[in-house]
């Protein structure tokens, strides 16, 4: 009885000794698997407030949207690692009833704040005129190129020339985020 008891005790000890060895073998099997991951490209621009409304502008008067704070935010995001540019153009500010347009430079933008590390042309904090052609607003750099959202906060001003025909003017600003300089 004493001999048999000894054999049982030996068998249990062997079994316990083998168990850690099996677990280790399973881990090695996972290391044999291959995996492929493609990080999706992100490149886009969004505007928080897509309509600028100047309620009442008298001839010779300047009206500012977002005064004291900001009016809207343009958010740009790219993870392609290459420099990108935000441009804007004013399609027109056309009278709804007459064949009249306000000059594009009557509408101006000002970059109030930015979460990016890139640069905006012109004097810091100064209003810059829109144009019928795309004008450079901001150039992304450094961390801006690595996928984080860059928030650009804007104010807008409208200078109504003294001889502006009364009525309602409508137009469009097109913001374009592009890698093309």
């Amino acid at each position: 009885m004493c001999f048999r008891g000894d054999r049982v005790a030996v068998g249990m000890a062997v079994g316990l000794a083998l168990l850690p060895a099996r677990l280790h073998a399973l881990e090695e099997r996972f290391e044999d698997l291959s995996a492929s991951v493609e990080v999706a490209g992100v490149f886009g621009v969004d505007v928080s407030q897509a309509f600028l409304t100047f309620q009442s502008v008298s001839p010779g008067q300047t009206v500012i949207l977002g005064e004291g704070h900001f009016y809207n935010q343009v958010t740009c995001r790219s993870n392609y690692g290459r420099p990108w540019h935000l441009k804007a153009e004013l399609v027109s500010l056309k009278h709804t009833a007459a064949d009249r347009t306000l000059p594009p430079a009557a509408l101006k933008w000002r970059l109030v704040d930015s979460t990016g590390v890139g640069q905006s042309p012109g004097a810091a904090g100064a209003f810059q005129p829109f144009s019928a052609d795309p004008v450079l607003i901001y150039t992304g750099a450094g961390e801006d190129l690595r996928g984080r959202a860059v928030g650009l906060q804007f104010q807008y001003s409208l200078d109504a020339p003294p001889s502006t025909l009364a009525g309602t003017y409508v137009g469009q600003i097109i913001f374009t985020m592009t890698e093309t300089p």
Partner: protein
Amino acid sequence: MMRVRGGCLMGLAVSVATAGMATRAWALTDTETVGVSAVMPLRAELNIIRDANSSTRGSPGTVLFDRYDDKDNQPDGNALFMYAPYRSEAGKNWHLLSIIANGSSMTLTADVTGAAGTTPLANILDVFTGGFFEPFPPPNSKGGASTDWELLDTFQRQFNEPLTATAPMNYRLRLRGVVGGTHNGNITFTVVSTL
């Protein structure tokens, strides 16, 4: 077996990425459009002001006739007229009409009331304007100048465009048949701006 499959997948992924890069290299662009609207209310405003070329006598809101022209301009003056400003105040205007009218057309008219004795002022009060000038640089004449003295009561100017301008004004009183004394009346200028 698993290694082979993985290899196929990776190879496919690389070829897709390469194809994408070929088209994206200089063409990564996204756009967002923002609408703009601006409302310009209709305005018709008229003010009477003076500038450096105005007479310094009296006040801009009152046209004052107090000197016979023959007393002012000896020996070439005419006793049948009084002028505001005096003709001796060469190059001066009495005052300016400052007009802001941003309709597609604007009409300026004048109405004269009162009498000098039995003679209605509307029949004897003349005006001469040097024209309408946009005051902002560069100075720009919009026309409308008088070519001769005009009866103020029938004075009228019309412009078929928005107008922000000043117009220098001079006045003349015809004295034929008018008795001496102090006479008073009113001139009412009216600006109508129409869309």
